């Protein structure tokens, strides 16, 4: 028997130098060792027992945590608004389905869980579903189908869904579940389509917009270049639309645009019609469309748009002008084609509206000319190229009672530029304000120098009414020149009253209060709205020259002149007839009791030096004064 190491040690410790064992000492040591062992055992037992308790507690806590985590995840999966399912990777049996999934499939989960697709779905669908599952399991790669229609389920087949399936493997990498999510994206796709539509369509007319047109044109150019075909681009602009908008207001204008757009789209069926801004439209004709077809379409459009449009109880008449450019003759790139279609349109407008014009290369020149002219006009005033001509106005018996001041431009190389060419340009770029003021000042200064206190009439542009402080500048000029306000007459057209009617009216009233006389010019053309006559006490009405020159040719003109005269007389407004050139015209007007006249019969517009006798200046005195 081997002695335990500890006992051997204890015996050694209890043995004295002589080799005698002290039994009492040995007993103490052995007893203490037992005690130590007991204590250690008790401590160990206790520790094990406590540890077990603690571990159990920890385990319970962990279980609770796990349960809570599971409940948390379950509730999320259950309430997520996306259908979620899981299937056994081996046999495609459903093992999980959330609430959205039940809605998607249109059946409670009890009818699906534990079953294979074949047990749930019609044969054809089951085959597709199982095949997809197999593919995901075999390849290990996820499957994603975007925006496809529902294949299964009874909850409406018009819904679009994104569906994806992916494989979940266990820790050893063996296929465990096929997990799928199915998301209803109908709203999103509809929204995307709507946004895309909005991005490429004009909100008012629902026609394609400028960017859509540009894209279509680019595409068409590419195709035409490849196939060496031709096509036409039509640029359209509604005539007199601005006036409608001004007179009747934007809501009516918008309705008119919609109606016009509908007509355009209906008539130009088979082409690409776009609204590119304001009252401008573009049409892209199909490939291989010949010039004649473009012209025919243009003319048809002029005709249908020209027909009266009934808009919200208003009867409105607008027209359309059309410019046509043809690829490749009139340009091989988008910018050139569009610019040339625009110059053709501009020409159509200028030639009297309601017309269809093809682009011609000289139009290009015209457009350049126009820009050059505009450029020259800016310098005309400072380089003293502008002149004021005076044309006498007389009573029917020939007595001159005043002059109308008329602006002329004597260009150093072009010679005299017709007013109807440069005044619209000046109105376009706002120069008319400066020029108009200059004319007014010149006319007043001149008139103030006349010995005879004759009237002087000056034309005011609508632009002068809209911008700048017209009242102040007239007042200033009268003070500067010393002309009595009662000798000044301003001629305005309806254009002044169209637009901000109230503002224009107030301004006219204030001018009249200064003593200035106000004449309505070009009466009989445009709208000639009688309401204008009613709303403001004009001092004079000027009948447009077009009626006078036709007096002898068309009986209607005479009737119109009569009607105007009788209306004016009823309102106690004197009338001036413009463009009186013959004695016969004068005689007719006198007979009809027209008060005054103006025209070649009385005198042409000319420098005032030509009429010194009429203003009461002796020629000699004037020359040597």
């Amino acid at each position: 028997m081997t002695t335990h190491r500890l006992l051997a040690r204890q015996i050694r410790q209890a043995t004295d130098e002589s080799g005698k064992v002290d039994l009492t000492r040995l007993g103490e040591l052995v007893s203490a060792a037992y005690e130590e062992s007991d204590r250690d055992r008790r401590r160990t037992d206790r520790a094990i027992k406590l540890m077990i308790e603690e571990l159990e507690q920890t385990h319970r806590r962990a279980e609770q945590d796990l349960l809570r985590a599971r409940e948390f995840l379950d509730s999320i999966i259950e309430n997520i608004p996306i259908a979620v399912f899981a299937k056994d990777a081996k046999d495609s049996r459903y093992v999980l389905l959330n609430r959205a999934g039940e809605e998607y499939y249109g059946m409670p989960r009890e009818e699906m869980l534990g079953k294979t697709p074949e047990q749930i779905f019609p044969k054809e669908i089951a085959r597709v579903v199982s095949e997809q599952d197999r593919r995901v399991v075999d390849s290990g790669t996820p499957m994603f189908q975007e925006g496809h229609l529902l294949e299964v389920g009874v909850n409406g087949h018009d819904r679009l869904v994104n569906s994806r399936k992916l494989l979940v493997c266990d820790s050893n990498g063996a296929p465990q579940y096929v997990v799928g999510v199915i998301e209803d994206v109908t709203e999103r796709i509809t929204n995307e389509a709507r946004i895309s539509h909005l991005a490429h369509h004009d909100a008012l007319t629902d026609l394609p917009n400028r960017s859509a047109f540009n894209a279509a044109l680019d595409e068409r150019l590419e195709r035409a270049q490849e196939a060496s075909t031709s096509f036409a681009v039509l640029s359209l602009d509604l005539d007199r639309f601005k006036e409608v908008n001004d007179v009747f207001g934007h809501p009516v204008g918008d309705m008119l645009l919609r109606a016009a757009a509908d007509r355009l789209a209906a008539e130009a069926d088979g082409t690409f019609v776009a609204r590119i801004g304001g009252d401008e439209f573009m049409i892209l004709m199909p490939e291989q469309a010949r010039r004649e077809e473009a012209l025919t379409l243009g003319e048809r459009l002029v005709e249908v748009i020209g027909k009266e449009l009934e808009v919200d109880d208003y009867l409105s008449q607008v027209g359309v002008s059309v410019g046509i450019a043809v690829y490749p003759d009139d340009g091989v790139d988008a910018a050139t084609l569009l610019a040339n279609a625009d110059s053709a349109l501009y020409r159509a407008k200028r030639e009297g509206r309601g017309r269809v014009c093809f682009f011609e290369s000289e139009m290009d020149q015209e457009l350049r000319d126009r820009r050059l002219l505009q450029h020259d006009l800016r310098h005309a005033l400072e380089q003293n190229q502008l002149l004021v001509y005076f044309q006498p106005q007389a009573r029917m018996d020939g007595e001159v009672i005043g002059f109308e001041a008329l602006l002329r431009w004597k260009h150093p190389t072009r010679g005299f530029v017709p007013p109807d060419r440069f005044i619209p340009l000046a109105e376009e770029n706002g120069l008319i304000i400066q020029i108009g003021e200059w004319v007014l000042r010149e006319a007043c200064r001149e008139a103030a120098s006349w010995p005879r206190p004759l009237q002087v009439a000056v034309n005011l542009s609508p632009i002068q009414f809209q911008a700048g402080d017209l009242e102040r500048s007239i007042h200033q000029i009268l003070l500067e020149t010393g002309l009595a306000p009662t000798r000044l007459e301003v001629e305005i057209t309806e254009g002044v009253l169209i637009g901000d009617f109230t503002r224009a009216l107030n301004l006219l009233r204030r001018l009249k209060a200064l003593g200035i006389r106000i004449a309505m010019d070009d009466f009989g053309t445009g709208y000639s709205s009688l309401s204008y006559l009613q709303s403001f006490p004009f001092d004079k009405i000027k009948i447009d020259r077009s009626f006078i020159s036709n007096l002898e040719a068309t009986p209607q003109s005479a009737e119109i002149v009569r009607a105007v005269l009788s209306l004016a007389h009823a309102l106690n407004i004197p009338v001036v007839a413009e463009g009186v050139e013959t004695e016969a015209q004068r005689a007719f007007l006198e007979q009809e009791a027209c008060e005054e006249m103006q025209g070649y019969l009385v005198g042409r517009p000319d420098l005032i030096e030509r009429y010194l006798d009429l203003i009461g200046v002796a020629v000699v005195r004037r020359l040597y004064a």
Partner: protein
Amino acid sequence: MHIQYLHWNAAHGWRGANAPREPAQLVLYFGNREGLAGGARYRELRDRYPDSHVIGCSTGGQIHGDDISDDEVVAVALRFARTRVRVVNEVIESREGSRACGVRLARQASAADLAGLFVLSDGLSVNGGELLAGITEVLGSDLHVTGGLAGDGTQFEQTLVGADGEPAPNRVAAIGFYGEAFRFAHGCAGGWDVFGPRRKVTKSEGPVVIELDGEPPLDLYTRYLGDEEAAAMPGSGLAFPLRIHDEAEPHRQIVRSVFAVDRDAGTLTFAADIPQGCTAQLMRANFDSLAAGAGEAGRQARSALADGIEGDKLAILVSCTGRRRVMGQRTQDELDAVAAELGDDVVRIGFYSYGEIAPPSASGRCELHNQTMTVTVIAEAAA
């Protein structure tokens, strides 16, 4: 290197070595607090070795060879052939000053040829971790530092350290070994196993743990020890050290044992800082696993010792008081295990401590340990 062993007991006084032929440079001694208090033992050694550095500390039991004694004072006188020895010491006023104290101590010892530092520190009024951080700050982590915290049996009242003076509380001392010939090898192991759930240190301040899993730590120890043994805290608490797991340093093995108890607050003070928020797990051991741990420390030290040694080899064993308390009469087993690994040619001396100082096997940086056996072997290389 030449070693002389001597020991003292009340019956016979000093016994052992004859008068040395050549004077020793260093005398190292360990004894219980009662034995060292008053300074008589120091003065006797000083008389015997007037020209030597004399350094020692109080313990929780003295080790010499295979024996453990509580009453004897054990000592070795060392004469080096080619190694220079210096002894430095510092007074530590408060635990908070531990790091600064370590810095001062290391600055005194620092020299270009410093080859090893053996530290003996007060065991109760020092934050051992901070002390070592201060030393490492000055000397760098490459220098090997070993040693231990002085003990006071299982009383935890007062520990003494003396370096060329009478042993006194609040002292930190160190022996610096200088020169190329000096050889320094060490090992450190515990043999404890974690058990039970991981717990969170929910509240702590420095070395004081206020809450473990929201509960006063004293309650936990009382449950595990039972009321009877819990009355003997902190000594009985040594049976269940704490394994500290710091997320910031996941590979660092830190074992801490209880040093003081505040029964009113229910808090426990450990040998070094325990960061709030870290994870702690109780540890326990049996006789065999502790002995095996000690054997492992011996094996590490032996295998780290270079060949080509000339003269005697001294192993200084610093083992934890907690181990002795758990093992009782079986404590001898761990000394046997160390001896078996070191071999017969190594002289063994040492003590049971309140903390062991050595770089752990995993990292080179020296650390304060609890509940380990650390073995430091010093020797000189052949010329």
